[in-house]
């Protein structure tokens, strides 16, 4: 007896949750069905109904409501047909679905009052649904799109159910116009607006709680805002009169107002435990059903977040938990085989981090099986086999979030039919959150959900600029950097574009003051900066630095939209400060695009993938002949300005002490016999390169710009040592210098020749095929290899390379990865597939270096996978490979 009682009380919380959730789902269905009839093509509506039914089914399964389960299962099948467009939506279908929702309502009401499903007969409706599904009744699209005959419009098989249901339930389906109700027990339901709750059930499921419309809370927040202003004015006023009584009253008002403000803000906050608690039961039940042993650990139940957000994360979390139990964790036998303890661990952790709430769901199960995921994605036509080969680990993991993806091999009762993960992502992103997955095959999977604390109030950093305040949402703030004294020089400037090197990453810099003055590039001001506050911001993947005058404070701000000025993209809205002033909220994304900062890295990657061309950034500079010269930016380590007296001489060679090294300086003017760089100037610009583990300094006349070009070297001007060729950048002709040649000379002077004389003899009759679409790198590779004494053939892309292989004898293929027509991976595959070239060694070069690409490369038979501009490594690898081959 006692057992049953305690079991029941344990259940009652869950039952309440179930009822709340199911009624909500049901009202969604009832609301959407008529809409679906009007616009049957609207996939959004179909999907919403489908998801609602799906959730309902899931909940019914856990609590073992057999009738509901049967009903929802049938309805889900039907909806799936509609989703797949195998079934036309005709009034019959809608009628059936409506009678389904009526019946569900009836059963739910019965559960609410008696905790059992009652005596309702579900068979008729189930039969009706199944009949439609298998095409017994109109609705099945028999290859023609003819509209159903009017006669068929007289439908309604389930009149037995509908009227009864109407009486008890049907009225409740309508939300509008419901008068505010007083529950029998005296609880008050305020508000009748947006929340799609169905009023009647509240009296029984929520006794001690007042349900308040969120709109009302918003309004209260506004009123409190006004009160705050009023208070401020009164305090100001009170200081004018030295009246103790007035002062006392004013400070009292002050206290009360602040308290009220905090309270109203916190009314919206709720502990996440309310949602997490029910998972214990769900996991336990699921584990029993599937014969798994699972230990669930929940941490951080007390973590609070905004009510609306709590609601929004509930479903996604449930999905993730179900997935972890169903797909992630293995059965005890399987676990034992792979050397794990029989009991699987599922841990849920919620915590505050950086103004956001993070929920981690971690299992120690089998992890994501990438092979399977790829195959599935290819099978479902989500990706092409082509692109599958190029995907990184993370990209593969992310595939599970695509609509229509489900890894479960058979559809089980518990988890979805592919509804799950895409819904999770959509729902989380809708509320401004992020969901990430990381996984180690065989060791488990971790899902990380990050959502803002609240939508209305966001933590922000207040910054000052010319006596005005601005707020920046903390979400996008990565870090703060203060540059003072010596460190000021770390801010580099190239023609008005400023950069800062943050732990090796080049971060573009914009100045808030310039933006506010409408200036897109930085003009050196007369007054040198004393100190610089840089906010490093992340705007949708674009990281950049924003220089501001002063950093004030962090504060929770209430975001108000800028209705009239919404076309100004650099602002995300405005807020009212404690003293009643209005402060603008800056939008990092807007600022980035206003300042025309480079696209995020991902975007750039997309560009290179689709166009498969080498966009190369060139640093432009001038020499004494006033011509524009260029050097690939990737080779440049730093830009410096040096003074005459810093330069020292070793013999006739100029050197500079630089970062504990003796750095040789090369005067490019002298190199090209133009003249001598004037060292008597205040500052001489210097390009610092770091190659072959040495620093080199190139003295130039003037650094002028950075440009991005597709690197079409037009023609070689003339054979001049150290010059690679020329290309057009816009209107200008740029002479691209051959950095390696120049440095070679410098090294040769030191009698440290890179050319291994012994090797030259051996290499004489070896032929290397260079496959490279970028003329610059092609030229570079050819020069390097010829310098080593190899015979070199060159091809522009994979197709050309294959043609050459058929005609010429080649000992090694050195290929770029990203190329038009046939890329490096494709080429490798074709080569390996050809018996003749079985033993032909291949080396891959790339400008986009990632571990997963490397792994892919190894798999495809590349001997080595190297970065393009690491010449030393390339030479070593070629030598090594060819020696081994001979």
């Amino acid at each position, binding site marked *: 007896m006692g057992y049953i009682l305690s079991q029941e009380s344990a259940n009652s919380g869950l039952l309440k949750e179930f009822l709340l959730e199911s009624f909500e789902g049901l009202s969604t269905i009832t609301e959407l069905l008529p809409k679906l009839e009007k616009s049957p093509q609207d996939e959004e509506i179909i999907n919403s109904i489908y998801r609602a039914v799906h959730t309902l089914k899931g909940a019914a399964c856990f609590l073992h409501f057999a009738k509901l389960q049967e009903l929802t299962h049938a309805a889900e099948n039907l909806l799936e047909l509609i989703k797949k467009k195998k079934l036309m939506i005709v009034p019959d279908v809608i009628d059936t679905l409506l009678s389904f929702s009526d019946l569900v309502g009836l059963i739910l009401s019965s559960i609410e009052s008696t905790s059992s499903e009652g005596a309702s007969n579900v068979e008729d409706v189930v039969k009706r649904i199944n009949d439609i599904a298998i095409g017994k009744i109109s609705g099945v699209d028999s290859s023609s799109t003819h509209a159903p005959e009017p006669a068929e419009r007289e439908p309604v098989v389930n009149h037995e159910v509908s009227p009864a249901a109407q009486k008890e339930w049907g009225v409740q389906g309508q939300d509008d116009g419901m008068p505010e109700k007083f529950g029998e027990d005296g609880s008050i339901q305020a508000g009748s607006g947006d929340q799609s709750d169905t009023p009647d059930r509240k009296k029984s499921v929520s006794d001690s709680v007042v349900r308040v419309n969120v709109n009302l809370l918003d309004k209260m927040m*506004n*009123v409190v*805002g*006004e009160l705050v*202003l009023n208070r401020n004015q009164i305090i100001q006023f009170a200081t004018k009169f030295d009246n103790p009584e007035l002062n006392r009253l004013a400070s009292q008002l002050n206290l009360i107002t602040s308290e009220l403000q905090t309270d109203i803000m916190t009314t919206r906050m709720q502990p996440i435990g309310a949602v997490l608690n029910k998972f214990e039961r769900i996991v336990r039940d699921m584990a029993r059903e599937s014969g798994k042993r699972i230990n669930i650990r929940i941490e951080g139940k007390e973590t609070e977040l905004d009510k609306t957000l709590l609601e929004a994360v509930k479903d996604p979390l449930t999905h993730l938990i179900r997935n972890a139990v169903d797909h992630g964790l293995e059965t005890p036998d399987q676990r034992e085989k792979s050397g794990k303890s029989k009991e699987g661990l599922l841990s849920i952790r919620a915590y505050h981090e950086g103004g956001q709430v993070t929920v981690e769901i971690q299992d120690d199960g089998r992890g994501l099986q990438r092979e399977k995921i790829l195959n599935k994605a290819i099978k479902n036509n989500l990706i092409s086999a082509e692109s599958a080969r190029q995907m990184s680990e993370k990209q593969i993991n992310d595939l599970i979030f695509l609509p229509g993806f489900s890894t479960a091999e058979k559809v089980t009762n518990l988890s979805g039919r592919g509804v799950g993960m895409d819904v999770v992502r959509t729902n989380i992103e809708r509320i401004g959150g992020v969901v990430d997955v990381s996984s180690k095959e065989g060791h488990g999977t971790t899902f990380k959900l990050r959502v803002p604390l609240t939508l209305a109030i966001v933590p922000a950093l207040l910054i000052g600029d010319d006596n*005005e305040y601005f707020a920046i949402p903390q979400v996008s703030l990565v870090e703060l950097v203060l540059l003072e004294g010596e460190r000021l020089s770390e801010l580099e400037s190239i023609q008005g574009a400023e950069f800062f090197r943050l732990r090796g990453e080049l971060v573009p810099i914009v100045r808030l003051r310039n*933006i*506010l*003055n*409408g200036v897109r590039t930085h003009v050196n001001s007369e007054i040198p900066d004393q100190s610089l506050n840089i906010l490093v911001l992340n705007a949708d993947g674009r990281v950049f630095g924003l220089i501001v005058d002063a950093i004030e404070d962090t504060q929770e701000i209430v975001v*108000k939209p*800028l*209705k*009239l*000025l*919404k*076309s*100004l993209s*650099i*602002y995300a809205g*405005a807020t*009212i400060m404690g003293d*009643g*002033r*209005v*402060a*603008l909220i800056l939008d990092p994304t807007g600022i980035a695009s206003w300042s025309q900062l480079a696209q995020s890295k991902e975007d750039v990657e997309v560009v290179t993938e689709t166009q498969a061309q080498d966009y190369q950034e060139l640093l432009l500079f001038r020499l004494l002949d006033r011509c524009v010269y260029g050097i690939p930016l990737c080779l440049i380590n730093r830009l410096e300005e040096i003074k005459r007296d810093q330069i020292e001489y070793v013999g006739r060679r100029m050197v500079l002490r630089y970062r504990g090294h003796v750095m040789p300086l090369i005067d490019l003017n002298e190199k090209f016999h133009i003249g001598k760089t004037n060292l008597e100037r205040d500052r001489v610009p210097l390009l610092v390169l770091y190659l072959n583990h040495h620093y080199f300094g190139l003295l130039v006349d003037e650094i002028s710009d950075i440009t991005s070009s597709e690197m079409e070297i037009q023609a070689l001007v003339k054979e001049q040592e150290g010059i690679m060729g020329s290309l057009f950048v816009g209107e200008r002709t740029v002479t691209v210098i051959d950095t390696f040649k120049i440095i070679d000379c410098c090294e040769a002077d030191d009698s440290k020749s890179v050319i291994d004389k012994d090797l030259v003899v051996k290499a004489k009759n070896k032929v290397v095929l260079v496959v490279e679409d970028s003329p610059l790198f092609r030229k570079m590779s050819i020069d390097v290899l010829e310098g080593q004494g190899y015979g070199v053939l060159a091809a522009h892309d994979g197709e050309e390379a294959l043609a050459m292989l058929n005609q010429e004898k080649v000992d090694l293929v050195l290929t770029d990865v990203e190329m038009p027509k046939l890329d490096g991976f494709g080429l490798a595959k074709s080569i390996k597939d050809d018996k003749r070239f079985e033993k032909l060694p291949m080396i891959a070069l790339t400008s986009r270096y990632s571990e997963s690409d490397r792994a892919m490369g190894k798999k495809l038979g590349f001997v080595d996978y190297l970065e393009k501009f690491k010449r030393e490594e390339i030479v070593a690898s070629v030598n090594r490979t060819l020696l081994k081959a001979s």
Partner: protein
Amino acid sequence: MGLEAHQTEGLSKGTETRQYCGFTIGKDLFAVPVLEVQEVIKPQMITKVPLSKEGVCGLINLRGQIVTAVSLRTLLGLPASKNVEFMNVIARVGDSLVALVVDQIRDVINVTMDSYEPTPDTLVSPLRDYVSGVHKTDGRLLIVLDLDKIVKYFDT
């Protein structure tokens, strides 16, 4: 019949009165329908909005609501006023509020529709762009502003 209908229409149109909130900018008398005006307030602390269009004075805090203040002088191509005692006419446009910064506030003006004329051809841009019509009142023209057009200008 056609004539009769026309006459009745003319009659009702003629006697129908309209209430306007009147204000001056420079020498001219302007008006917006009184129903669109929420209140008239004194100069407020204003937050400038960098990069906004010419004519946007900034944002003011009206009891917790953020209202965009618009200088009608700038909008109508007049030089900025030296008068510091300007007034803000808070008007509702759709679901947002806009504060019209004007020189001087006048009474509520009652006019009948028979004094109404569409915008005269002699009115030129930029004034013409924001006017919906004029009323011929005693001795002086009442220029009726079209708030939607003003808002649209700032919205795009």
